[in-house]
């Protein structure tokens, strides 16, 4: 049963992002954008900077040059708590829930910026989207299974009714069937509900199936972009995963 979920989608525009962890930059001159209602994926080999890009968009990693716009609002290098106030939701790859807090409390924290009266209503809405969480409201988040944790992590972000949804490898460490379900059902639903969704994924095939557009990253830069159909048709698409990159990937130290 799909819930009536509407999210106030806002366009996300990242222009010429160069960022790193203090030494050499990990990503250079990256430009990506995601419009409301579409799933945009970021794929590429390890070390290509995908995670770093997301972290720089939410204020965890310092951007040395470039701008990030959420709608009309510039959020470059703002602290994460302010970016959350710009209705940007972020699901990290690891440490994605508050492990000692209960499922319900996790959701409440997701709704930290809401008025008290709104919280209960939003929790209900999240439970409608993720009914598997309903019987587990009192359980500590650290005790959930991998798939349940990811749903909780996404549900936490949903509490805010974000206009932009950033997901960092949500299917990592999930069994293939669970992963496919997560992508095809829940991630797709976020976009159809109106949000701009930017998702980093290792499972290139699976995420291309739900994407409107895809960027292929390599060595800290954008190597290719286009619709999944366009990219799959290119002979060098597969190569880019299996060693087409000319520049070195620079890993954070």
């Amino acid at each position, binding site marked *: 049963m799909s819930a009536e979920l509407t999210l106030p989608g806002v366009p996300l525009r990242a222009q010429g992002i160069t960022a790193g962890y203090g030494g050499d930059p990990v990503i250079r001159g990256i430009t990506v954008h995601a419009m409301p209602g579409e799933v945009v994926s970021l794929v590429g080999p390890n070390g290509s900077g995908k995670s770093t890009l997301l972290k720089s968009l*939410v*204020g*965890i990693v310092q951007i040395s040059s470039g701008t990030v716009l959420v709608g009309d609002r510039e959020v470059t290098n703002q*602290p*994460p*708590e302010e970016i*959350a*106030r710009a209705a940007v*939701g*972020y699901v*990290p790859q690891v*440490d*994605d*829930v*508050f*492990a*000692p*807090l209960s499922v319900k*409390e996790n959701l*409440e*924290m*997701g709704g*930290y*910026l809401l008025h*008290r009266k709104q919280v209960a209503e939003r929790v209900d809405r999240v439970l409608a989207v993720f009914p598997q969480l309903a019987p587990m409201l009192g359980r500590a988040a*650290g005790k959930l299974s991998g798939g349940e944790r990811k749903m909780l992590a996404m549900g*936490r972000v949903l509490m*805010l009714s974000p206009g932009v949804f950033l997901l960092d490898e949500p299917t990592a460490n999930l069994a293939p069937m669970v992963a496919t379900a997560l992508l095809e059902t829940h991630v797709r639903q976020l976009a159809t509900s109106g949000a701009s969704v930017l998702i980093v994924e290792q499972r290139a095939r699976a995420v291309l199936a739900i994407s409107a557009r895809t960027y292929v990253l390599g060595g800290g830069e954008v190597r290719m972009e286009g619709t999944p159909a366009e990219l799959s048709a290119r002979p060098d698409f597969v190569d880019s995963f299996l060693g087409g990159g000319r520049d070195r990937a620079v890993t954070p130290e």
Partner: protein
Amino acid sequence: MTIFLSSLGFGLVTASVLAIASVGFTLQFGVTDVLNLAYGAIMIAGAFVAYLVNQAGLSVWIGLLVAVVVCSLGSVLLNSGVYTPFQRRGTSAITMVIVSLGMTLIIEFGVQALAGGTAVSYTMSQGATLQAGGLTLTVVQIVVIALSVLVMASVHVLLRYSKLGKAMRATAANKTLARNCGIRTGRVITITWALTGALCGLAGVVFAIDAGSFDATATDLFLVLILAAVFLGGPGQAYGAMLGAVIIGLATEISAAYITADYKYVIAFVALLVMLGVRPTGLLGART
């Protein structure tokens, strides 16, 4: 049996003082990841503030209120002015211990410099002695126990039911994620230190009341009891600290009655070392 009961009485009072102190200490660690070894020094500073008020002619209970405010402010300053800058620089955990020991010296002996080295006491009445179920306690002792229960209940309500309390727990569990939720963790941390600093001041005064006479070094050994209670329950776990305080408080006093009083701290020390060696996450902490 009377030995047991009277030591039980002492144990309850010690456990009460220890509980207030330990909860404050453990919450500071939980939210900042720093073992604030200057906690004992701030406690005794609070005790002396109340003493000054008391000497000025006011009741020690008013002095307690003043001490609570002073220690609250002082703790916030300690974290914002000393611990946080060092942490921001990437200072190692061991060096943070040395920093907190340095602050202990400054605060504790600053108090001693101002107050002199002799032991002092509050001018207060202990109140009538009451008996219930074989236990003999003075009114003041009962007040201390009641205060402790009140504090535990308040902390429980704060952490479980209030938005701030949950934000504190979230910040302690995963600071970055908390920020992603829009929680202004800097503010939450400051408030946490203000509240725990208040607990520290409160603990200091009731410690001094319970001890009778005290000087600036009186909390040196008590800090070890706090550490034992905190590590027994699990560093960062408020309920663990409460549990640890009860166990350590009762164990030290009851053992003191049956073995010589000189060794009563030994149990706490050994418990602490055993916990560090065997299960550093504590009885209530998650297994690493």
